[in-house]
């Protein structure tokens, strides 16, 4: 297992039921914001939080994401041109963390706004928000300021931020907002999510050219949200059509075959990354498998990997006519992945404990002109 995969596995291992970590790196458009919110919404609906709490979290996420579209600057010279969005849930804590490039000329004003907000208590925030709504207070771009005030007000927490100079004219603006869904005593044991965590994620994504990752429950709803995010982040090309096809089969494999480690629950832990190289994409997916199934899985992939394109076509046609109508397994997924991607299936099976292994694949999809 190479270093990047080992990192993904180690990062995945601490997953617990209802956890969620979604990261996107790229251009943040209004359409994408909608799709990310959709993903957040379907996961919020699964957690035990009250409706009031859910709508609060949803609102803060919306403001945080729109904040990027309001502030983001573009610089052709900067490697940090892309924005980063992290939606994170662990135990009683939700985090919405964002990063985007901004003009240095706007830095002082933004810093002042954030400091003002962070020094106000709940009543002070209410007052400020009212002032801005009724007059043109604060300054001319009242819309963006209101967003920040509302985030502080509704989360009940300070806005943690860092503005890092990138070049002479640009800085990178990191912002995290935390929402606690439980009383302070319950949340006290939770590991904090800091600005440094966000910076680490950002650096990891930049270094490895990841554009998207998802760690959480793999069900049909999340799968569809991830597919919509892929679609809204990329123009429709032959490559995107291939990526879409490979992604469906990869993710449905997890939805259907992942070992369910939480008793009496449909919650299926999995992890998925998209990595973009100059000439290809890599799709990385990992999940637990029951030890009793690992050997057969290995054998099956080895067999499919050994096949040439003609044999793959033959095998596909053979299985196509096998109408056992098993709703769980069609037997075609990996063959389809091999055929669409034109690559061998790289895979790793790592022992977790006596009952289960961790199974991970890396599928290369070459860019087609």
């Amino acid at each position, binding site marked *: 297992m190479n270093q990047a995969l080992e990192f993904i596995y180690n990062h995945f291992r601490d997953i617990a039921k209802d956890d969620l970590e979604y990261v996107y790196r790229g251009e943040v458009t209004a359409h994408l914001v909608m799709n990310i919110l959709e993903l957040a919404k379907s996961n919020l609906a699964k957690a035990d939080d009250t409706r009031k709490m859910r709508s609060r979290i949803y609102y803060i996420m919306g403001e945080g994401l729109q904040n990027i579209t309001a502030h983001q600057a573009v610089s052709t010279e900067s490697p940090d041109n892309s924005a980063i969005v992290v939606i994170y849930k662990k135990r009683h804590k939700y985090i919405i963390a964002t990063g985007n490039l901004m003009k240095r000329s706007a830095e002082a004003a933004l810093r002042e706004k954030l400091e003002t907000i962070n020094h106000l208590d709940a009543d002070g925030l209410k007052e400020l928000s009212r002032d801005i709504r009724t007059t043109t207070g604060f300054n001319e771009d009242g819309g963006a300021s209101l967003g920040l005030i509302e985030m502080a007000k509704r989360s009940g927490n300070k806005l943690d931020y860092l503005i890092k100079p990138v070049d002479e004219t640009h800085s990178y603006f990191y912002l995290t907002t935390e929402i606690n869904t439980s009383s302070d005593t319950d949340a006290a044991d939770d590991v904090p999510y800091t600005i440094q965590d966000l910076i680490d994620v950002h650096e990891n994504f930049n270094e490895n050219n990841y554009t998207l990752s998802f760690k959480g429950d793999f069900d*049909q709803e999340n799968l569809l949200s991830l597919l919509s995010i892929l679609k809204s982040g990329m123009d429709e*090309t*032959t490559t995107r059509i291939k990526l879409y096809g490979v992604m469906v089969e990869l993710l449905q494999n997890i939805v259907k075959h992942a070992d369910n480690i939480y008793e009496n629950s449909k919650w299926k832990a999995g992890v998925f990354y998209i990595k973009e190289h100059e000439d290809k994409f890599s799709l990385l997916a990992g999940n637990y498998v029951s030890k009793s199934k690992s050997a057969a899985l290995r054998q099956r992939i080895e067999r499919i990997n050994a096949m040439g394109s003609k044999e793959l*076509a033959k095998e596909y046609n053979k299985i196509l006519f096998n109408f056992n109508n098993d*709703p769980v397994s069609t037997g075609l997924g990996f063959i389809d992945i091999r055929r669409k991607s034109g690559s061998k299936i790289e895979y790793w099976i790592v022992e977790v404990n006596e009952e289960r292994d961790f199974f991970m694949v890396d599928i290369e999809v070459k860019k087609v002109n």
Partner: protein
Amino acid sequence: MEPYEITATVDTPEVSLNAGKGTLSLARMSLPEDAVEFYSPILQWVSDYCKSPNPQTVFNMKLEYFNTASSKQLIQILLLLQGLQDKSVVIINWYYKEIDEDMQGLGEEFSQIINMPFNLIPVAKFDK
């Protein structure tokens, strides 16, 4: 026979089956969680239609994408239509986006394996 019509969802296709006109059509996306369940009434309808078909039957395959689970269901529809040829003139129009080489390839392959000619029709994009 009653027509069978379903509107599309994010993961299931628009379905329109009309015995009076002898037209069958599938459009949009097909990646349901349980393809067997989704296609079961469709296969039943096609199977009933084959008992007393229209003199001409046209199948418009306009799916933009179908997953492997759906492909097993699709081949069963095609097999029913293959068996219908002595009772009805069967025309299969296989639409695909011109940039979608995989969908084009599948059309060629499916035509070959059920041994029936398809009209392979490239389109710039599908109507929404």
